[in-house]
Every structure is written in structure tokens, then in C-alpha cells.
């Protein structure tokens, strides 16, 4: 519904964003792919292979080209399995907690209660706390084995103190990250709940539908889409959790895939290995992204 002229102008208007994002996506990604096939260690005294001209590169092919070695080492590194396991545990648990908890909480907040707005403000707050703050607050003031608030509670209950980050680092990280993402799930599910047609509720009441059947047959189908959206978006973000693990110093035992790549690259200076790890992470994320995009794409039609 526009003329050629506006469409031509439209293309010009879209161009800067498209070009910027294209470069942002393609340049680092292709470099990462390239590096992943090189022997490339920042501590190597020889000139970095990525800086050589094509001719020099051919001369030094044996030294430079790693073939699939980087992938082989990364994928067979026991640390990779541990990181994968940690990544999946983190994603799985946090999603389970935030979706189930978020749904229940949203249902509660959708009831007639006093001070709903204030309650909502309190619940959404953790989502705005920057990850580094959250990591330090939980590690110290909440979960410190001696003076932490949780230690005080467990001791008062006669359970003794728990050194969360030393003995259950994964549990600690899951609690911390869930604390940030439960509010997100609650907010979105609550928003969806509030768009539920009031007349449908009344019709169901007139029909004498019991609350549980009402929830199962009416509310849950209505929430199917927002919950799917929550799951997919959280998956994207949770696969990339980094600061919480890095700052709380639990990378050694609870480190996930991003942390491992960081470790390879910026801690061990193994650029080739880190790049291979990065590509593995990209492939995994793309599998999730595929489903998310289809969801949102469908929504575009409506």
C-alpha cells in the first residue's frame, strides 16, 4: 500500500540497520569459523597465522592449519561434557522453576488481592538487578556458610549451615538465576492472563464449570503461547549465562559452555580451541532459535 517512491525511500531507510547488523553477524562469525580451523595460540612465539598473507599461509600450512583438531579436542575434552551438562542443567532447572512457579504466581496475582500493584513491583524487582550484583549478593550476604542469611535460617531450624557454593555450586547458581527469571515468566504469564476474556470466565461460571476444569480446559490453552514464548526466550538467554558464574567464582565446578569458551580463549589463550567451542555454542543456539523464530513468525501473520 505504498508507491514506488516511498518503497525506494524505505529501502534506503532500512539499509543502515541491515548493513550494520549484517556486518555484526557475519564478520565475527566468519572469523570465528576461520580461527576454529587454525592452530592459533596467543602465547605461540611464531607470528599469528591469522595475520599471514595467503602465500605465507600456504608455506606454513602444516604449522597453521589444524583441520578439525580444535573441534576434536574441544568435543572430547572432559570439561566440554561437564560444561554441556551444566548448561543443560541450568537451562532445564531454571525453566522448570520459572514456568511452573511463574504460572502459579501469576494465577495468584490475577486474583482480587489488596495492594496488587505493590506486590507486582516487589516480584518484578529481581529482573532489573544487574547480573554481577545478583552474583555477589547471593554469594555473600545470602549464601555465605557462616554469616549468610540462609545459614542463619537453616541453623535456626537446626539443620546446620550449608556452604552452598562449595558443596552445591550448581544448586546455588540455579537458585540465583531462577530468582532473576521467575519474575520475567510471572510478568509475561500475568499479562497474558489479564487479556483473558472476562465474558468467557462469566460464561464458564454460568455453566458451573469447576475451577480445576476451568483452569485445565480454558486457562491453560490460553497460556500455551505465552509459556512457549517464555521457554524459548529464556532458553536463549540462559544458554548464554556468563556473568553470574564468572563473578561468583564458580566457573570451575558449575561452568557452562560460554564459560568454557571464555576459559579456552581469554584464560588459556587458545584462540583456535575457543573458536571451535564458540561454533559449537552457535550451532546449539541455532537449534533453539529455529523453533523460537517459527513461533514469532506465526505471530507476525496475526
Amino acid at each position, binding site marked *: 500500500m505504498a508507491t514506488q517512491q516511498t518503497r525506494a525511500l524505505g529501502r534506503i531507510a532500512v539499509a543502515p*540497520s541491515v548493513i550494520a547488523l549484517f556486518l555484526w553477524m557475519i564478520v565475527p562469525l566468519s572469523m570465528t569459523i576461520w580461527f576454529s580451523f587454525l592452530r592459533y595460540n596467543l602465547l605461540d612465539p611464531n607470528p599469528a597465522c591469522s595475520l599471514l598473507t595467503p602465500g605465507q599461509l600456504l608455506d606454513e600450512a602444516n604449522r597453521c592449519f589444524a583441520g578439525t583438531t580444535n573441534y576434536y579436542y574441544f568435543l572430547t575434552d572432559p570439561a566440554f561434557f561437564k560444561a554441556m551438562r551444566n548448561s543443560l542443567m541450568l537451562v532445564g532447572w531454571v525453566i522448570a522453576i520459572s514456568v511452573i512457579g511463574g504460572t502459579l504466581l501469576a494465577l495468584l496475582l490475577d486474583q482480587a*488481592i489488596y495492594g*496488587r500493584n505493590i506486590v507486582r513491583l516487589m516480584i518484578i524487582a529481581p529482573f*532489573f538487578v544487574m547480573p554481577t550484583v545478583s552474583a555477589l549478593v547471593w554469594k555473600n550476604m*545470602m549464601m555465605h556458610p557462616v554469616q549468610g542469611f540462609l545459614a542463619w535460617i537453616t541453623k535456626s531450624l537446626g539443620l546446620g549451615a550449608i556452604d552452598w557454593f562449595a558443596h552445591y555450586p550448581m544448586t546455588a547458581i540455579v537458585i540465583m538465576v531462577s530468582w532473576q527469571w521467575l519474575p520475567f515468566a510471572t*510478568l509475561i504469564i500475568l499479562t497474558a492472563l489479564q487479556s483473558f476474556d472476562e465474558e468467557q470466565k462469566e460464561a464458564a461460571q454460568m455453566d458451573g464449570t469447576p475451577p480445576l476444569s476451568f483452569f485445565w480446559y480454558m486457562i491453560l490453552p490460553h497460556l500455551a503461547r505465552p509459556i512457549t514464548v517464555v521457554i524459548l526466550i529464556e532458553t536463549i538467554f540462559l544458554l548464554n549465562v556468563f556473568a553470574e558464574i564468572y563473578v561468583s567464582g564458580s566457573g570451575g565446578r558449575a561452568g557452562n559452555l560460554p564459560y568454557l569458551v571464555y576459559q579456552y580463549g581469554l584464560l588459556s589463550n587458545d584462540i583456535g580451541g575457543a573458536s571451535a567451542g564458540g561454533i559449537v555454542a552457535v550451532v546449539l543456539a541455532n537449534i533453539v532459535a529455529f523453533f523460537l523464530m517459527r513461533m514469532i513468525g506465526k505471530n507476525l501473520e496475526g
Partner: protein
Amino acid sequence: MARAVSPRRRMIFTVLAWSIAFVIFFPVLWTVLTSFKTEGEAIHLPPKFIFFDWTLENYAVVQERSNYLKFAMNSVFLALGSTFFALVIAIPAAWAMAFAPGKYTKDILMWMLSTKMMPPVGALIPLYLIFRDLGLLDTRGGIIAVLMLLNLPIIIWMLYTYFKEIPGEILEASRMDGASVGKELLYVLAPMAVPGIASTVLLNIILAWNEAFWTLSLTTKDAAPLTQFIASYSSPEGLFWAKLSAASTMAIAPILVLGWFAQKQLVRGLTFGAVK
């Protein structure tokens, strides 16, 4: 809305909701309270909730010792700078996609979204090296560019969903009135979309303020924002809880306030319009 709810039921739900909300909010509240304690009281057991000697000393010390203001200024610069530059290129793009869509507009939108799904670790190494070679490490300009690109897809998407709600006839009327495209954007579309643009700005500031992966990897000192400032407390200052709390409170307070204002729009922005 006119459903009759028994007072008893209402009270039970109210108490339940407030209790859960309190538990969820507690770590934030605790941080703020601890920031007003002395170090001794901060680690005192049993914990002191209200009855302690309130002091502002920690705030002064934090500013003095670790120069909070410098980091805060960097955070402000990065958040506002990245938002501003993103808006400059996103508004025309969203306008074009909403009002002059072509055959590939939907594909472009979806593709933009897909860039958001790239795990940062896939780009970390090259970007770090590029930044190192171009001398962009630890510079505000470099980080602003990264944050802008990082959030550009969300900004375009949000603006797009807001613009779609503006009737095209009004823009056509301005075209009939002789407005050029630039004037149409400036005098007609932008003022009408002020609420949408404001929400977009708000969300982007929040995201940029809390972004931790890139700011932690690409800054050290000069351009370091509050994420880095707090990370520097991980040890050994982390043991000084009152100061850590004061630093944390200062780092999250501005964004918490903004976030509370923006929570409705947040849903739309974070779900790319899939939930409104």
C-alpha cells in the same frame, strides 16, 4: 470485574501473595538495609533488620575508594549513547517496514531477530582481537557500538509493533499536505509514537545498563561501567558486606526505578510483540 469475592478468600490470597513477594524481594531489600549498617552489624548474627545504627558512611567510602561516580558516568554514557545511536537508525527502518513494506520485509525482520540469538561467545574471540588491534578495548565508543548492535533488533522490533498501530491514513494525509518523508517522520510519526518510542528507550537503557558479558570482556578501567565496578568487589572487598551493599544499591537503584515504570512495555519488548 464484577465477580463477587468473599472477604475471607481475598484475605488469604492477599497474605499469600504478600508473603511470596516479600521472599522474592528480600535479597534486594536486604542489600539496601545492609548498605546502611556498619561492617560489624552487617555480619552480625542473628541479623539486625531495622534496629541498628543507620549510617551513610559506606556510601562515602565506596565513592572515595573505588570512584563510583566514574563508573556510573560510564554506565550512563553507554546506556544513553547506545540507545541514541540505535534510535537514529532504527526509527527510519521501522517506519519503512511498518508503512512501506516490501516483499522481503518480514524476512528481514525475522533475520534481524536471528542475530539476537547468536551466542556472544561465538563472536567474543574475533571481536576481542578486532578491538585490541583497533585500539577500541576499554573505550566508550567501542562499547557503545557493541551495545547498540546488540539491542538494535529489539529496538527495531518494538518500534515496528508500535508503528503498526498508527493508522497509515494519517501519514498519507501528511503526504497529501505536502510533507516530505523527513518531515513526515519528524512532525507526524515521531510525535504520535512518543509513548512507544519512550518505552523502547526505557527498555534499551535497562538492557544496556545490565549487560554484563561484553562489558566484562571488553572493558577494564577507563570505559568500565557499573557491572565491572561491582565485579571488582568479588574479592577481597566482597568481604566488606556493608560496602558491597552500598555499591550494589547504587548500581541497581536507578534501573530498578526505571524498570518499575517500564514493566508493562517490557513484556512486549522482551517477547518481540508476541505477548502484549
